[in-house]
């Protein structure tokens, strides 16, 4: 550890190629397409509610993975899946459990 926190420490040997904007534009287009698809799915109507829910959530998760991979610079160091695992498990298990306990899938209130 360097004594002075502001001095430059020696750089680790790492690839330093500068990326062009192409990949990020592709990720952006992917995100836009997924978003449009989701909106279109809902606006078209006439479909099984459960099916729409599953599709919506799947597309949201897909979009988030794409954005995290390309935009939050995680794919570079192989951190993507561990981080998604660490973040997704604690943040999703409360909603999923409540689905079971309070039953927010149904339209009728269970309590009171």
């Amino acid at each position: 550890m360097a004594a002075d926190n502001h001095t430059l420490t020696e750089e680790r040997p790492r690839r330093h190629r500068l990326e062009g904007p192409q990949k990020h534009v592709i990720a952006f287009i992917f995100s836009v397409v997924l978003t449009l698809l989701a909106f279109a799915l809902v606006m078209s109507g006439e479909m099984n509610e459960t099916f729409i829910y599953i599709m919506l959530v799947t597309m949201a998760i897909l979009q988030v993975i794409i954005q995290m991979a390309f935009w939050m610079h995680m794919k570079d160091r192989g951190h993507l899946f561990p981080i998604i695992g660490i973040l997704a498990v604690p943040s999703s298990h409360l909603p999923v459990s409540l689905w079971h306990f309070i039953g927010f899938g149904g339209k009728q209130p269970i309590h009171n």
Partner: protein
Amino acid sequence: MSAHSHADGKLPHEPEKATLEGRNKVLGFWLFLGGETVLFGTLFSAFLALRHQVGEGNPTGQELFQLPLVALATFLLLTSSLTSVFAIQAMHRQQTKQLISWLVITVLLGLGFLILEIYEFYHYVHEGHGFTTSAFSSSFYTLVGFHGAHVLFGICWISLLIGQLMKKGLTVITAPKVYVSAMYWHFIDVVWVFIFTVVYLMGKVG
């Protein structure tokens, strides 16, 4: 590479991670975002648990939500996420001017998003969907409002950084700040993906 703003000469390739302080900042911010994920996860839980509790005679989400407006807001925020990536790329090329312009565009897009959201809330209140109307309305405003407050904070933060960049230039001290604010901005965008899915689209379905 001609645009050197740093008087001492060339910066390292990843100036945000060149110092121990910078590396600490990036790591600490990742951890902070982990906590934020749980924060929003819990807010989503509360919203999901209460979203059908509209009450007699109050407008439901199905009646309230206007998808074109939401789609426009989504597009603005999504684009701002892309522009903040461009800002970081400019930073890595050490082009301070481009970096600042991309950040300005990001802030403007965020501002547009925020104006749309304020208009939306204003409109809902007039439709009889106030904060205290029902459990649905309370949890709706809390979830979306927490996100909106995050956007507002991000706008102020990045504006402050733009000022610092203009004054101090790109250095190993300012670079981690810019990098971390971009992480924050992406995170806000990711949360919004779930908000438009869970709150608006699923609310429109029923």
